[in-house]
């Protein structure tokens, strides 16, 4: 029984390490493609990138805006429950800490995983199963350059834009709730938020956008392109991509919080 358990753990560890090795090679291949601009065709890749930004950014904006307004409102409602005397002096700091530093990047990343990460893993997995990747390779079109790179850049740009949307609407949602308890104008609230906001907050938000967007795009494309040659493997690859993306986002978020805010 104990031996079987040890064998199972060993097998899983070996598989996990092999996966890490495969992913490292995948990231290396993408980095090599990015570092060789002479072999990239900006006109062809620009179209793929534009589609990616449109799908991951523009089409996700309404969902992000709705989620941000609700979360901003709920954050302030919950604050009222334990900070009975919440003054307008503190509301700015509260919104910066909760929305801009943490929830903005994190919830946006979860939306990106749910909408775009799953789409990337499914699309790239289907391309592998349908022989589309082999056709690209046969014509010397590097999938790292043609498939992965535009999705990576698109996911990062979409993350940056969606975080701005989330932060703005999150503050607005908080403002709407605060109006019920305080004599507050939007200009005053924005003033308080800007007072509490430091350049470091903006920089770290951007850093999270780059880290989260890159991790989601790379993991989703990697699991999709590595799918085993059977249609029943595609849903498994998508599930693995989602789990790995969520885990990596939480790890990156934790590392940044420990490194810069502790």
């Amino acid at each position, binding site marked *: 029984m104990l031996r079987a358990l040890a064998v199972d753990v060993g097998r899983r560890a070996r598989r996990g390490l092999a996966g890490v090795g495969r992913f490292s090679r995948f990231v290396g291949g993408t980095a090599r493609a990015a570092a060789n601009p002479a072999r990239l*065709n900006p*006109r*062809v890749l620009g179209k793929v990138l534009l589609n990616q930004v449109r799908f991951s950014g523009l089409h996700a904006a309404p969902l992000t805006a709705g989620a941000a307004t609700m979360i901003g409102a709920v954050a302030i409602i919950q604050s009222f429950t334990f900070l009975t005397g919440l003054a307008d002096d503190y509301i700015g700091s509260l919104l910066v800490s909760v929305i801009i530093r943490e929830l903005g990047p994190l919830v946006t990343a979860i939306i990106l995983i749910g909408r775009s990460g799953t789409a990337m893993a499914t699309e790239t997995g*289907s*391309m592998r199963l*349908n*022989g*589309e990747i*082999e*056709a*690209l*390779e*046969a*014509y*010397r*079109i590097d999938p790292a350059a*043609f498939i992965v790179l535009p999705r990576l850049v698109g996911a990062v740009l979409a993350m940056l834009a969606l975080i701005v949307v989330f932060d703005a609407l999150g503050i607005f949602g908080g403002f709407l709730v605060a109006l019920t308890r305080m004599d507050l104008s939007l200009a005053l609230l924005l003033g308080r938020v800007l007072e509490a906001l430091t350049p470091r907050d903006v920089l770290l938000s951007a850093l999270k956008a780059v880290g989260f967007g890159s991790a989601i795009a790379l993991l989703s494309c990697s699991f999709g392109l590595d799918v085993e040659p059977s249609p029943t493997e595609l849903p498994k690859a998508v599930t693995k991509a989602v789990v790995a993306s969520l885990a990596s986002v939480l790890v990156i978020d934790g590392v940044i919080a420990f490194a810069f805010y502790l």
Partner: protein
Amino acid sequence: MTAIEFRRVSYHAAGRVELRGVDFSASPGDCIVVFGRSGSGKRALVKLVSGALRPTEGAVASGPGPLPAGYVASDGGLLSNLSLLENVVLPVVYHRRLARPAALTAARALLEELGVADQADNLPARSGVGARRLAQVARAMLAEPAAYVFDEPLDELDAAAARKMREVLRGLKDGRRAAVFISTGRLKAFLDWGERFFLLSEGGLTVFETRAALLESADPEVRLFLD
């Protein structure tokens, strides 16, 4: 000039040896029929020729230019989110062999010649299997490669598309500007086409340099396909 050369090429996939120590070379004008049972390794061989796969051991050397082989898969092989026309121009535009307007004009002319111009703007999923395969042929022809690789070229085609495909193969063979590889599990259908014949059996390659040598062979594996 050599269009393609295999030097001690082996290919392993999922712990299975699909090709073992394969050596051969092909010149422009060669028409090679690759045959063997299912799972014999012929698909791995044509994918290695096309560049869609890389050898596990050994080396594959191909002719000059960025697009040494034009690959026509039996199914799939076209990007599903691009129209047939966009698929045809993608390699030459991506590698800057042709400017996009010139490539589109040339691609439309090729699709017209192949009889599928009316489906040029359709996505692959909205086109028939014949149109999809002929679009792959147009893509390969536009790239002007040193070798053409056809995987089961006549499978699932209707009579009109099959006739067009035979015309294409005849034209490429007679043109003698590139090597032509035809992979098939039905040797008799391509007996008159081939000048050299490659038998794949359990990953090993046997080369018959002439049709006469193939027809005279007593190899039971060959007889299985001929008798």
